[in-house]
């Protein structure tokens, strides 16, 4: 009976597996093969020479990688610190108000990221909404707030806010109130409850939120382009240049593979630390 069940399970999974193979694995495979082709090759059948990988180290692309990871890391930490109290309140304290906040945050996703960032550009630029109004009413203005690293981080935090908030809320919802009360009854301090009860129990939500925010921010481009004025060049920018103006698909593919491998390693490490099934409401027996 078990064997039959297994066979049925494999059969039912077959369509989605085939779909994943065709639409998810195949493009990755093509990128992987392109990445080992000779420079400027547009064919997948040339003799592999791995030259693009050596170029990454010779031509300073590690600097762009560094910036991508630093920006992603900083924005993820800020997002976590910002979202934790709000997610906590949404999961534990607010009742109907949670729905209002949820709708407000989700509605912002209906507008394209570029348009939202352009809104911030018009708000923050010299002569924009803030500086322009200030200068109009006080006679004193200031240099615009754009084109620096902090504003890129601000952009990332703004754009990826929902991707941290909702998983975190889900994670916090899994903390049983009884467990917290028991800890307090046994004399635990607020700090101890946070560190030893709340954070470990909300870990699946924290991991999902952190991974989503980090992965998306590491591949983000619009924030550094629009708000940051490309003060720093991120790896996604180099990938775009290699595929377009550089017309060097192997180099673009190698840079993509580098980012994919780093992010995959971080994701596998993160996921292996927690039981993701719990957040899906399907505790493993």
């Amino acid at each position, binding site marked *: 009976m078990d064997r039959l069940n297994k066979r049925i399970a494999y059969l039912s999974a077959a369509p989605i597996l085939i779909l994943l193979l065709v639409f998810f694995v195949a493009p990755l495979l093509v990128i992987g093969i392109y990445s080992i082709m000779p420079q*400027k090759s*547009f064919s997948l059948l040339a003799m592999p020479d791995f030259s693009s990988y050596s170029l990454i180290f010779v*031509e*300073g*692309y590690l*600097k*762009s990688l560094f910036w991508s990871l630093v920006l992603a890391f900083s924005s993820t930490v800020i997002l976590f610190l910002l979202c934790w109290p709000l997610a906590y309140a949404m999961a534990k304290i607010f009742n109907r108000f949670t729905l209002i906040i949820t709708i407000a945050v989700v509605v912002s996703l209906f507008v394209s990221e570029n348009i939202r960032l*352009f809104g911030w*550009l*018009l708000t923050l*630029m*010299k*002569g*924009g909404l803030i500086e322009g109004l200030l200068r109009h009413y006080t006679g004193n203005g200031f240099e*615009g707030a*754009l*084109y620096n690293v902090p504003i890129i981080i601000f952009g990332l935090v703004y754009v990826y806010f929902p991707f941290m908030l909702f998983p975190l809320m889900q994670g916090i919802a899994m903390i049983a109130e009884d467990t917290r009360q028991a800890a307090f009854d046994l004399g635990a301090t607020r700090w101890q409850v946070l560190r030893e009860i709340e954070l470990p129990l909300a870990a699946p939500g924290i991991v999902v939120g952190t991974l989503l925010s980090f992965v998306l921010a590491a591949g983000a481009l619009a924030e550094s*382009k*629009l708000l940051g*004025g*490309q*003060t720093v*060049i991120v790896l996604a920018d*180099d990938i775009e*240049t290699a*595929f*377009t*103006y*550089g*017309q060097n698909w192997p180099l673009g593919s190698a840079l993509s593979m580098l980012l994919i491998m780093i992010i995959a390693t971080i994701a596998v490490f993160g996921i292996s630390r927690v039981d993701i099934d719990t957040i899906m409401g399907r505790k493993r027996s």
Partner: protein
Amino acid sequence: MTISRRQFNKGVAFTAGATLAGPIGSAFAARNELNILCWEGYNTDEVLSPFRKLNPGATVRAESGTSDPDMINKLRAGETNVWDLINVNQPWAQGQLYPEGLIKPLNKDRFMPYFDQMLPEFKAPYPLALAGNGDLIGMPQRYGPFSFVVNTDKISRATAEDQGWKLFLDPKMKGRYGILTYDNWNVMHMALTGDQNPFEPMDAAGLETFKKTADAIFGGAKMLTDDLVAMNLALINGEIDAYFTGGTYTASPARLDGASNVRAITPNSGPVGGKGGVVWVELTSLVNNPNPSTIAEDFLEYVQKPEICKAVAFAEGTYNPVSQMANPKVMSLFDSDELDAIQMDSLAEEMERSLDYQIVPSYDELIKIYSEAKRS
């Protein structure tokens, strides 16, 4: 009604067979359709609707690209069997598309006479529309000088034209300009800033000079963006006083909106035969589609009509002169504000002072140096 398992299986087999046969079948069907891959303008209703009326049974579609290489990548990725016309800047057609067999020659008997109605710069034999063997590889229409842009309230036109590219090496300009990162253009312009000819191969010393120029220009820039609207906003609001790489194409939307202090500048002098500006010209070419459209060449002929020339020149987004403006019927369709937006007052002299956008032989080395300087 009940369906038996056998009937169901038959239905599935038929559907699968029809799906598989679809693409194969269409390969042998006559194609009364037209797919155009173009810069913004050719995809507007003003341009396409009258053509659709002229060809009632045909399906006419156009998609606008965001950069030349993006569009070329589509053909390289195997979409030659999708597109019938491609509209890109020189020198992509001459340097890459034609040698790689992605586009094919036009019928010279049909199209060469149209060059007689164009501005003097485009009179036949117009070298940029021809391949080395004399084949006609595309029809020119929109064009424009493309060097840099200033806010004339801060830097006068005369000063900018006299200083030319050296404006961006002036210590007083540090932190006062942006770079519009149209990378292939920046490469040409940086070479010209360093008194080099980008259209000739560079030796090691030349590459070193280019590196110094690229470092200096990136080092002094306040901002970088590839968005011309963001760049014009920064110029109008005083974040910057000039931007490196720009022309009538980028300045015209701001000028038509009333910001006539945004002005595209062509240097008075430069290192290549005394010229320092560069001009772009779009070519619309016939894609080497294995199953060609029956109406692709008709469309190329259709866009030579005066009212369509005007629609292409003043499509949404950016405004540009067209080579057919030598024809009084075309010229009469533009009002004074529109002519001012495309800087018609100085267009001819700017063209005189500009080099044609050609193949950059050392592009591979230069783009590497450029990209490194951009990252640093």
